[in-house]
């Protein structure tokens, strides 16, 4: 796949940061259509950008021929978003605490912490074909 592909409530992109804006435009459009307020849209957009960046670099190791899929669903009073890559996964808890004094000036390592801070739930599932992180946010 050389360019983003949208099917209903799902966007698929090659593993490149070039397509982060495509994901953002798609995501924010769907969320506005669901009536989500702008502040919550920003929190979700920040979180999804973190997960897509993780998928590009840590999941698919920037292999452009590998795909990242972002799927958005409304479930009762929440928005549920899954971000799937083709990698072997990671441990959600195996991350240094970025707010420890020793880590404050590190340039990286805040992504998952931010997602966990902004979202109501963060779950991960790894299978033979890849890893899916699912976030939910009450709306």
């Amino acid at each position: 796949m050389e360019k983003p592909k949208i099917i209903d409530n799902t966007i698929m992109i090659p593993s490149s940061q070039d397509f982060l804006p495509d994901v953002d435009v798609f995501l924010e459009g769907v969320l506005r259509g669901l009536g989500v307020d702008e502040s919550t849209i920003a929190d979700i957009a920040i979180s999804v950008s973190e997960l897509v960046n993780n998928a590009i670099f840590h999941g698919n190791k920037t292999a452009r021929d590998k795909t990242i899929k972002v799927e958005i669903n409304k479930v009762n009073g929440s928005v549920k978003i899954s971000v799937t890559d083709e990698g072997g996964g990671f441990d959600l808890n195996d991350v240094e605490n970025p707010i420890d004094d020793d880590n404050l000036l590190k340039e990286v390592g805040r992504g998952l912490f931010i997602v966990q801070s902004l979202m109501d739930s963060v779950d991960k599932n790894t299978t033979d074909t890849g890893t899916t992180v699912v976030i939910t946010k009450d709306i």
Partner: protein
Amino acid sequence: MKLNDRVQDDIVILEPKGKIMGGPDASLLHDKLHDYIEQDMKKVIIDLSKVDWMNSTGLGILISGLTTIRNNNGELKLANLTKKVQSLLTITKLVSVFEAYDSIDEAIKSFK
């Protein structure tokens, strides 16, 4: 993301606009910041009034600029934080790292 930059007296003022989420756009801010530091500019203000939001990549760029300029005996300050960026700095405790001002004028005065 777009980026405007200007020099007022000996102070560099960078004004990114949009969302800082990673990729080529974010590199623009990083590269411009480090270009000025290489020119031995020691006073930098980043005006964040037009930044809708940023993620950890944006925060990493700010930290990279801050530490590099401090190592050159300079200072980087922030101005006009939007509510969303302020919230992110609070969550990540980076409010304790950056000097932030409510206006460009206040940030400029703080250098004098």
